[in-house]
């Protein structure tokens, strides 16, 4: 904001001239980057396919209806597997994420080297998508639900630990100090002073991640790591479109139910 006084007038402008220039420059750079990115992408696009897409979409859409309802009976086990992958994966992740978070938080870390290691664990786990984790684990463990569960677990550690350690850093230090003043040991300070303050966050993060993991575990089957994605990719590869639409509907319903459940549980806990 700037007020400029000239000879006999006062001019109000939102920004100073210099700042305005800087902002315009930023816009210019931003727009050029976007245009450049677009030119690269469009260079690598076969526009014939894109023009053909509406017709293709109509065609596939037409083949998808009506969904093959009888196929649902074959989907019960895959859905059960999908839910298990998400739930057990979340449980594994939380068991590891809580100690990692305590090591990563500035006010609870035992040592600064430990903190760096913990932060590194968090970033690596977050950066690698669960599908890539699954891809690697299928090489090690062979295809199946176990690979999917561990993949979901590995991916979720970083996410959960990050949210938890941020909330640990925001706790009220007075409460911890009061516990310290009674002569409590470090572990007691942790369980009496810090844990009660972050427990709601820990519970909330676990539920939130479980909800996300239900979605993520629906696709792990694409690389053979179990769950309903297996049926999805098989149906797409064999062009069984009525099965595909059935699977998509089942996924839709599962996700809605999981969202409803997590909202209910969160409401009850917090």
């Amino acid at each position, binding site marked *: 904001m700037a007020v400029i006084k000239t000879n006999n007038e006062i001019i109000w402008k939102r920004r100073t001239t210099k700042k305005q220039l800087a902002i315009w420059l930023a816009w210019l750079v931003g727009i050029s980057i976007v245009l450049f990115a677009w030119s690269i992408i469009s260079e690598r696009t076969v526009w014939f396919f894109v023009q053909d897409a509406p017709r293709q979409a109509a065609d596939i859409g037409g083949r998808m209806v009506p969904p093959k309802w009888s196929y649902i009976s074959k989907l019960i086990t895959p859905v059960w597997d999908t839910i298990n992958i998400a739930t057990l994966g979340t449980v594994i992740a939380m068991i590891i994420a809580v100690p990692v978070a305590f090591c990563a938080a500035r006010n609870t870390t035992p040592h600064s080297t430990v903190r760096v290691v913990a932060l590194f664990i968090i970033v690596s786990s977050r950066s690698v998508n669960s599908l890539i984790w699954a891809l690697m684990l299928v090489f090690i463990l062979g295809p199946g639900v176990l690979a999917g569960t561990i993949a979901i677990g590995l991916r979720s550690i970083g996410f959960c630990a990050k949210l938890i350690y941020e909330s640990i850093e925001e706790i*009220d230090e*007075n*409460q911890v*100090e*009061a*516990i*310290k*003043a*009674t*002569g*409590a*040991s470090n*572990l*007691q300070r942790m*369980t*009496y*002073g810090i844990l*009660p*303050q972050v*427990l*709601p966050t820990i519970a909330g993060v676990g539920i939130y991640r479980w909800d996300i993991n239900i979605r993520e575990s629906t696709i792990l089957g694409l690389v053979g790591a179990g769950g309903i994605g297996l049926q999805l990719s098989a149906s797409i590869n064999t062009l069984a479109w009525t099965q595909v639409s059935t699977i998509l509907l089942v996924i839709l319903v599962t996700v809605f139910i999981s969202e409803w459940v997590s909202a209910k549980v969160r409401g009850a806990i917090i």
Partner: protein
Amino acid sequence: MLKLENLTKRYNTGDLALQGVDLEIPDGQVLALIGPSGAGKSTLIRCVNRLVEPTDGSATLNDENLTKLSSRALRRARRRMGMIFQEYALVERLTVMENVLSGRLGYVGFWRSYFRKFPKDDVREAFRLLDRVGLLEMADKRADELSGGQRQRVGICRALIQNPDLLLVDEPTASLDPKTSRQIMRLINELCAERGLTAIINIHDVLLAQMFSQRIVGLALGKIVYDGSPEGLTPEVLTQIYGEEDWSATIEKVDDEDEDD
């Protein structure tokens, strides 16, 4: 007996909060520490139980030099010093009972405390203290469901269940209304008398300080500028501690009319 010798604290930021404080407090004395904001009152009592590490000098409690203790011995020494905080500093999401019992943490092993299996004597004592401060019914309430005055009473129980020799009290009434303030101060005073406790009470309210303590120490810019009886607080002395002001209304003796809950 608590003895402070040349106690000095310089914070990392460079603030010299305490400049060589010498103070001797005999057993059973209740001492009020007054002084303007930033004078170093909190720093002084925190240097005693080493929530703040003093830079120089020593604090000696019953012939034990607190400033030299290893961390294990320090924990042991902290059990003998109860602390009461301005903002209560209760663990808000724990129940009243857990907050009171947390005063015993220094005496109880980790797993016992983790599973809330405190010794019978501790539990009985906790109930007795809660009854004493009139909160027996509240034992299972969560601390954040209490009012300010009730929270401070829980804070007092937490300090007393430590069975301390010394009470460190940092502005116990700063967040309370005038009537509750008096009740809390009276409670602290009575409990000290019952148990023959030594106490240092930081307080902003000069009137309350005069009413409830046997000795007053005035601190300004990290130095002791007054040490004497409550009656000796003349306008001149207050000016020396706090600076120029019209003090007539502050120290006018008001009758301590006895109000109860």
